[in-house]
């Protein structure tokens, strides 16, 4: 049964991975590189929280600190892994044949399908901060693929933009999931209509303040909503950055 919830930033899972000791083969960078991950849903070593949401399995708010820090190359199947870079520079390498460097606003969708490896690294001194979203595909063993896009916050100010999903200019993935982003610099109302009442909406406040039927959501707070015909968000008045994942049940 899918129920609605509000999740405060502090209620998320927290994991810290060092590039030394037992995780040294998995975590790149040395000797003081650290990956931190706030998980909205149960994933990996964090298993005492909320179950995943619809077709989404992972919503990770991650920081790679220290040059060379990140995940060394490792194998996946099936999952569609999306990254949305918020700060710093992410170097992504995959066995589809891409070496990509992503800056704030850039995002990608890597579909591991029948098998693919990837590596996620911060090669710079500045911290790299990204949101990682994992989605189960609608078919098993698809051909592996990689696509990337860019969200321009300036030209899209005060406008909800679909980044991933079935929309003009969005990255297409093989699943009934849509990911959108709104950056606003004024108080505004956003009426969000899911594709159907069977779709769920997970909204995550990257920055600023978002109101929802009298409930205030602050930085890194989030909410999950099922069965709504329309969801009424308000933002601002200060700069607000909101990421919305809509998914089939």
């Amino acid at each position, binding site marked *: 049964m899918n129920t609605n919830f509000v999740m405060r930033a502090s209620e998320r899972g927290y994991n810290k991975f060092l590039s030394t000791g037992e995780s040294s083969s998995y975590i790149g960078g040395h000797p003081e590189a650290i990956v931190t991950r706030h998980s909205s849903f149960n*994933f*990996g070593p964090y*298993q005492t929280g909320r179950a995943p949401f619809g077709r989404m*399995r992972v919503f990770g708010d991650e920081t790679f600190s220290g040059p060379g820090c990140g995940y060394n190359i*490792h*194998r*996946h*199947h*099936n*999952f569609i892994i999306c990254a949305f870079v918020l700060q710093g520079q992410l170097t992504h390498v995959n066995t589809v044949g891409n070496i990509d460097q992503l800056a704030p606003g850039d995002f990608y969708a890597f579909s*591991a*399908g*029948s098998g693919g490896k990837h590596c996620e690294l911060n090669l710079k001194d500045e911290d790299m901060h990204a949101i990682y979203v994992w989605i*189960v*595909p*609608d*078919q*098993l*063993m*698809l*051909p592996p693929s990689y696509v990337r896009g860019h969200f321009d916050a300036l030209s899209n100010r005060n406008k909800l933009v679909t980044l991933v999903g079935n929309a003009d200019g969005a990255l297409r993935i093989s699943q009934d999931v849509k990911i959108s982003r709104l950056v606003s610099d004024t108080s505004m109302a956003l009426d969000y209509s899911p594709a159907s009442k069977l779709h769920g909406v997970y909204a995550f406040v990257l920055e600023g303040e978002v109101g929802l039927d009298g409930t205030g959501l602050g930085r890194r707070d989030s909410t999950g909503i099922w069965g709504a015909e329309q969801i009424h968000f308000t933002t601002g008045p200060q700069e607000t950055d909101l990421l919305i994942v809509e998914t089939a049940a």
Partner: protein
Amino acid sequence: MNNEALKRFMCDGCGFLYDEALGLPEHGIAPGTRWADIPDTWVCPDCGTPKHRFEMVEMPYAAGHPPRILLLDSF
């Protein structure tokens, strides 16, 4: 004989797929081996995630997969 339909399970850690119809002969698990008959101590051969963190999946295969179609029910 167990007439229940053969099922598929996906690793929550990396997406590795266990298909009961295919087994994992390269890891000593014969085609047709039921998930329940794999020891609880078994872990994902790709990423080490424990067996209880696999989930049953019902989505179809993409065109061209699986590479070997085994119609075990006809055996």
